[in-house]
């Protein structure tokens, strides 16, 4: 096979399973109580310079509490896996202001936009300034990179991105299939330093349940060196053991469990509450003016102690009740 090409984008993380295996070997496997406050979990497990991945899908089942806490603690120089990161990206990009640099490098599949809601003015400013190093991928590519890491292999061969600038600006490499002789794209395994995943239920050890689509989170939890779980509810370990088929993330992958009811707000949480479109619109609107956005951030993020206070400012449980009526998957009373 001739003409095998290589993407020219930067490879931010080592795809070699050897150091990852050594790390995972030492990770605590026994059942220990990992319940922490979000503040404590973020300060203990998120280090400056870490490569981060946000679970869920942009405005759906995101760990808003952990994302806000990262911004509030002014973490810096982070990497990010951006597979359809929308409001989560918007929150993290808020840390790139006044010369501060929360985000330093981003693997991009989808950033800056909030789907049909439009583009984030602030995230655009950050990404168009050139202050963040970037590498292009696709949603499937990032999902495969996490799966390769979850499998403990250095790459996965796929047929996506071929012939496009997306490939040329990625860090993937073309290879020849040893069976068919055809060209394939090798996607390097991605082992994030830290993942933030919001789930419906977890026990105090970190055995988690997700109702609905898992997006890429089952692989993300297995691929990441450290995992912070925020959960709508902490449930008893007996419940987990009574239906082990419902567990999608096992405790031996998890480092911290934080109970955060309504923790995906203003995002959607399947079966719990729908997204707060008014609040998301307000966020997009205030971003147009940097001074106003700065004031907004101080009101809602920097000057509040925790997620609960942010939720209270945004309408609290009353607002959540309204959003529950818009969520069609809320179980109906018998």
């Amino acid at each position, binding site marked *: 096979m001739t003409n095998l090409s290589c993407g020219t984008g930067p490879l931010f993380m080592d795809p070699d399973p050897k150091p990852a295996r050594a790390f995972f070997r030492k990770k605590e496997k026994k059942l220990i109580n990992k319940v922490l406050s979000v503040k404590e979990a973020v300060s203990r497990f998120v280090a400056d310079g870490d490569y981060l991945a946000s679970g*869920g*899908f*942009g*405005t*759906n089942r995101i760990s808003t509490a952990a994302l806000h806490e990262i911004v509030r603690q002014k973490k810096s120089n982070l990497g990010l896996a*951006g*597979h*359809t990161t*929308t409001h989560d990206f918007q929150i993290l990009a808020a840390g790139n202001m006044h010369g501060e640099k929360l985000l330093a490098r981003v693997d*991009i*599949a*989808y*950033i*800056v*936009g909030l*789907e*049909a*809601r439009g583009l984030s003015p602030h995230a*655009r400013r950050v*990404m*168009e300034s*050139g202050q963040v190093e970037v590498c*292009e*991928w*696709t*949603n*499937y*590519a990032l*999902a*495969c990179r996490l*799966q390769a890491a979850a499998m403990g292999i250095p790459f996965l061969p*796929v*047929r*996506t*991105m*071929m*012939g*496009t*600038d*997306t490939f040329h*600006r990625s860090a993937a490499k*073309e290879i020849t299939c040893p069976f068919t002789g*055809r*060209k*394939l*794209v090798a996607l390097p395994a991605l082992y994030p330093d830290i993942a933030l995943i919001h789930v419906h239920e977890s026990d105090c050890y970190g055995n988690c349940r997700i109702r*609905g*689509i*898992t*997006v*890429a989170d*089952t*692989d993300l939890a297995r691929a990441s060196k450290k995992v912070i779980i925020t959960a709508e509810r902490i449930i008893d370990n007996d419940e987990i053991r009574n239906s082990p088929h419902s567990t999608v993330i096992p405790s031996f992958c998890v480092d911290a469990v934080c109970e955060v009811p309504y923790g995906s707000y203003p995002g*959607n949480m*399947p*079966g719990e509450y729908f*997204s707060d*479109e008014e609040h998301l619109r307000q966020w997009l609107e205030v971003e147009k003016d940097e001074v106003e956005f700065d004031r907004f951030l101080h009101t809602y993020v920097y000057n509040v102690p925790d997620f609960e206070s942010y939720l209270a400012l945004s309408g609290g449980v009353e607002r959540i009740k309204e959003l529950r009526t818009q969520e*069609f*998957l809320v179980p109906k009373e018998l």
Partner: protein
Amino acid sequence: MCEYCTIELMICVAAQFLKDGSTVGVGTGAPCAAAMLAQKTHAPNLLIIFEAGGFAPQLPSMPISVGDSRTFHKALMAASMMDVFNTCQRGMVDYSFLGGAQIDTYGNLNSTIIGNYDNPKIRFPGSGGANDFAGFCWHTITMTPHTRKRFVKKVDFLTTPGYLTGPGSREAAGLPEDTGPYKVITDLAVLGFDEGTKRMQVEKLHPGVSFDQVQENTEFKLLKIPVIEQTEPPQKKELEILRDEVDPHGFVIGR
């Protein structure tokens, strides 16, 4: 005949291309409206797939995100992004429905940047799942407004593959055989791709639109099929379903 707006016409035309019993990967907005309309009219067995993991939902209303809970409401399966694109890669998805900031004569799409990559004028979201869908699905349908800024000689960034540089180039690049752009539905016309050259051709003109008008709004030279017919206006029944059931709040059709 009854009155309709252009976006309604585009959605009704797009819906017609989705055959009953086929599978389609859609995004939110107009593509989703077209798939819902098709499901409620001629294609009750249309299997709609959303990239975040929703397989075959019965949509209670228009999703806002391709990963919100409506995309797997009463679905056959709530799975993962991996499962969706694996399904596409192994050849089980007939259509994908995309948009983009720019499109060229081969149907290549740009949704990454406008300007120079290292110093972009506008940073757009990037591929998301568009590159994956267009690489793997048998037919790609694009819906986009028709302007010279969008229909360009050369896309600033080739995010998502059309016919790349012409006949045979998708296969040479390693993409699955017999896949590629199928239709482009705009506010002026329905366009397809010439079998031999893989270049874009005008196939139907919307009522009151001339070929010259379409060409004026296109930077590259358009081909045309021998006999260009007029796009059939939406039927009363289609419009009723679109307005009353598919998009009653007017999120997409703006009523």
